[in-house]
């Protein structure tokens, strides 16, 4: 059974005050997410990612189409019992402490007594909120509120978790922490559906992704199917590059960009053997700092897909 399914899901908003007209934020989205997978929902700002998540959480009603979670219609209370949700840029009652907020949400899930106390303590530990859990949320930084948001989404040990931009506002350590958390959720069989525009996160976490642009699904599938992974060239970082060596290499490389401290990045096309270039660099007295193969990234694919969708839309 699919954990999440949408069928021709559309959402129109009325815009304009005097003569309201419909604006299509989501256009016939059909998706299926399997149980236990980490699914990346990608797209530029305004693509319709948050709209989709809100429809799945029944915070918005679809104009047409249908959506199901764990085989039941969205909004079904028995489904909500098994689902966790982190909204984008979450806001919580700032007169409460993190502990009080989670105790409140826990009671809404029917938790009580020692079960509630231990569950609250565990999820706060999981997201890295320490002694600050007894401070009121108005004293929290944006990153800490985001962590509390994650904690409340995991409080009921959900089977499906929806995370809207989970890395937003987090420092590099926090992002790493959340990545590990998502992998742990996957390992225990939880379906993770997360929206993001940070593609490196999606690349390192997801088994499948969907790319949305202007409310439409422009691509979806396994990363291994979407990305060709073929070699697109080589990237060299070198130091002590003389003008004479630069001139002699110019015709055989794709680009040469100056970095700080006299270093250069050199992009070599795939048909050019890197050994030859390395040999010439050493002969000219240059020092090779690094050499890496260039392969198609999710970012390249994203830019192509979103760019093509924009072209179709404008007709240019």
């Amino acid at each position: 059974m699919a954990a999440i399914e949408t069928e021709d899901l559309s959402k129109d908003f009325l815009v304009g005050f005097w003569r309201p007209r419909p604006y299509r934020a989501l256009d016939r989205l059909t998706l299926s997410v399997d149980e236990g997978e980490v699914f990346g929902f990608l797209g530029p700002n305004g693509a319709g990612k948050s709209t989709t998540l809100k429809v799945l959480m029944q915070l918005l009603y679809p104009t047409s189409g249908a959506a199901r979670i764990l085989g039941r219609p969205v909004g079904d209370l028995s489904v909500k019992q098994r689902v966790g949700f982190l909204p984008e840029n979450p806001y919580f009652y700032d007169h409460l402490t993190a502990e009080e907020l989670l105790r409140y949400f826990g009671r809404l899930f029917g938790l009580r007594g020692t079960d509630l106390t231990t569950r609250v303590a565990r999820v706060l530990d999981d997201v890295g909120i320490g002694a600050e859990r007894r401070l009121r949320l108005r004293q929290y930084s944006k990153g800490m509120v985001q962590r509390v948001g994650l904690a409340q989404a995991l409080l009921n040990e959900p089977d499906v978790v929806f995370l809207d931009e989970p890395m937003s506002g987090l420092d590099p350590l926090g992002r790493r922490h959340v990545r590990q958390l998502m992998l742990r959720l996957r390992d225990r069989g939880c379906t993770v559906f997360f929206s993001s525009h940070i593609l490196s996160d999606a690349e390192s976490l997801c088994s499948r992704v969907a790319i949305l642009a202007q409310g439409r699904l422009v691509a979806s599938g396994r990363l291994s199917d979407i990305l060709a992974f073929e070699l697109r060239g080589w990237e060299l970082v070198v130091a002590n590059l003389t003008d004479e060596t630069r001139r002699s290499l110019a015709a055989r490389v794709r680009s040469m960009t100056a970095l700080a401290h006299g270093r250069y990045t050199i992009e070599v096309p795939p048909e050019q053997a890197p050994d030859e270039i390395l040999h010439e660099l050493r002969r000219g007295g240059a020092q090779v700092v690094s050499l890496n193969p260039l392969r198609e990234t999710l970012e390249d694919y994203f830019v192509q897909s979103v760019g093509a969708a924009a072209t179709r839309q404008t007709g240019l």
Partner: protein
Amino acid sequence: MRIITVIAGAAFKESVRDRVPYSMVAFATLLIAASYLISQLTAGQDMKIIKDLGLAAISWFGLLIAVFIGIGLVSKEVERRSVFAVLSKPISRGQFVLGKYFGLVMTLVVNLAVMTLAFYAVLFYLDVTTNAYAKTAWPAPAMDPRLGLAVILTVAELMIVTAIALFFSTFSSPLLSALLTFGLWVTGHFNADLRNFEAVLDVRPLVWLARALYYVLPNLAPFNVRAEVVHGVDVSLSHVMLTLAYAAVYIAILLAGAIAIFRRRDFK
């Protein structure tokens, strides 16, 4: 029911941590205490003035608490987007609205109880410091239990006002909700005039409109028994029971309307 209780508890906690009700209760208590000083200037009328001012202060400050917290109950949640996380939990939108309402009613009851205690404390002081001869001029005893009846009817009136504020806050801005709620509170106290509109102007369509408005708008005048209580006039049990029943029906209709609107709302 359990979910509604949990949400009501959280709404009550929120208002307890908000300083606004505290300052209102403190101000009302000061006003009740000050009524004692004012009464010293009016020989023979002291008890009536204290009771009048005390009951009015309880009613007015209760009204401010009901309106200013009531209008933000739902709209603030939507505006700040805290509603996203709450509604993703296994609760219905109806439970959310009812929980919020009963949370504010709890706040009102606690605040009014504090003001009533302060009121009775002033009355008790006056009772023990006044000689028996001066007491014979009082229309009713200082610690008259009928005062409690006036407070109960005030609570019922404020429960209607809270339901009105909540109803408006499910679809309009806090400022508009406040204006509409205050407007309805004022018209609610002059509602009886609409029933006898033909005595003023006998134009059939206008009379029908006035009659329709009379039935739709809240009729709050029966909740004000302050004048009777202060003058020691009995308030009939049937009046109290009918007024409370009217409040229950009117509140139920308002809450049903608020839930129906809130259920259909999109949260962008």
